[in-house]
């Protein structure tokens, strides 16, 4: 079986390494072949950008050579896909090479598009790239007081970032002695402080305790950068001195250009992770690229990749898939500079977050390093 994996991020890398391990003898015997096509020779641990924005990590700590993470049996080409010819079972890359497959795995991720809301890109800071996270720290370090408005666009990757960035900034400015001069104004798109009801039930009183103002049902419509004013679809107008945003996202442009899914998200079966429609037998979709109504998170990508890898290996060996993805997601929630909690849930079980503590924060800091073992398939 010729397996082509498009995208060398969290989902693609974990999937490819997991399959390579399971099919080691088939790969040696030439009965299976794994090719990875990706857009960068570097693999970036994106969750680290939150710490870059707070001046606690630097971007170089969050990068590894993609080749160093992959099982040697995987053929890696840093050559992004431009054309998906699903009917003919091949893809064409930027360099013009054609790769034929029996099974295609699409895991190209998602990207922030702040430019879709008028005025947002000019006015706001965010932490959705290394460069933006560095710029975030510049603005935060120079902040001398005033109102910090936090706005949340939809959809976005990492559902905990709105809370985490607010708690993190709170502690940062508290340590600088700026608490008295700073007003936090947290907004959220629906009628509570977080999408997960139990998380909102914990976060709202925590915000109150810290003096953080909350406005719910706030979906940003436009920003007037010159006057420091944000307007919501719901009719609210809020002044700000510093605008912090979780920008809305799209899938990659190449997905839209090839008409694989609206806004770059591919219709995907929630259990089998197969692309919905006529190409279901030859296309699997993983990670942020799916249109599934679950969190766009590294843990989602990880659990999906494991389920898919087990199925693909079983298909090669026995001709039958063996597992369904159950919607499992696990998210750490940093609740400040030195305490954290977590939310774990699936399609049928809501999360039951506990009170934040120092041990969970230490675990998250350790995971930030352990990630590399996880990407290699060792964890």
């Amino acid at each position, binding site marked *: 079986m010729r397996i082509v994996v498009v995208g060398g991020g969290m989902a693609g890398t974990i999937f490819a390494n997991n399959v390579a391990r399971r099919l080691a003898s088939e790969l040696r015997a030439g009965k299976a072949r794994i090719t990875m096509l990706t857009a960068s020779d570097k693999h970036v641990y994106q969750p680290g950008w939150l710490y870059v924005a707070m001046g606690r990590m630097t971007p170089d700590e969050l990068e590894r050579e993609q080749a160093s993470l992959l099982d040697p049996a995987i053929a890696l080409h840093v050559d992004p896909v431009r054309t998906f010819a699903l009917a003919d079972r091949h893809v064409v890359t930027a360099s013009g090479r054609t790769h034929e497959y029996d099974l295609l795995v699409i895991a190209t991720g998602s990207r922030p598009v702040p430019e879709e809301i008028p005025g947002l890109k000019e006015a706001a800071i965010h932490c959705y790239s290394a460069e933006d996270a560095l710029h975030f720290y510049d603005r935060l370090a120079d902040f001398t007081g005033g109102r910090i408005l936090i706005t949340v666009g*939809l*959809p976005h990757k990492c*559902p905990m970032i709105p809370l985490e960035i607010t708690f993190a900034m709170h502690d940062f400015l508290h340590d600088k002695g700026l608490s008295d001069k700073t007003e936090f104004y947290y907004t959220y*798109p*629906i*009628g509570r402080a977080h*999408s*997960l*009801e139990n998380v909102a039930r914990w976060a709202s009183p925590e915000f109150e305790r810290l003096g953080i103002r909350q406005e719910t*049902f706030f*979906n940003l419509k436009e920003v007037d950068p010159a006057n420091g004013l944000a307007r919501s*679809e*719901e*009719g609210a107008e809020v002044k700000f001195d510093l605008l912090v945003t979780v920008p*809305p996202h799209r899938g990659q442009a190449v997905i839209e250009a090839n008409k694989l899914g*609206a*806004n770059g998200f591919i219709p995907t079966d*929630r259990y089998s992770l197969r692309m919905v429609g006529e190409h279901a037998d030859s296309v699997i979709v993983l990670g942020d690229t799916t249109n599934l*109504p*679950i*969190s766009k998170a590294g843990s989602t990508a990880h659990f999906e990749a494991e389920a898919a890898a087990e199925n693909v290996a079983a298909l090669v060996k026995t001709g039958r898939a063996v597992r369904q993805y159950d*919607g499992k*997601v696990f998210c750490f929630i940093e609740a400040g500079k030195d305490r954290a909690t977590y*939310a774990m*849930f699936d*399609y*049928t079980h*809501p*999360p039951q977050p506990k009170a934040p503590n120092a041990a969970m924060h230490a675990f998250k800091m350790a995971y930030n390093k352990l990630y590399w073992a996880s990407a290699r398939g060792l964890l």
Partner: protein
Amino acid sequence: MAETTLVDARGSFCPGPLMELITTLKRAQVGDVLELLSSDAGSAKDVPEWVRKVGHVLERTERDPAGVWHLFVRKEK
């Protein structure tokens, strides 16, 4: 031509049905109708509340025998 788009948010705790609806509605055309599927009883309350606030129209709400809510929302602006 206005279209009816299905937003299947069954089993979605995060982002959840209302956030799925807002996401899809934002990029839909004025006049489009979205049919939101939700297994969360809370949707029968928070979806109408948001739709009213923003000025879209909730055309109708049904609950099927499996207990799934179907909320039909028309984009007004």
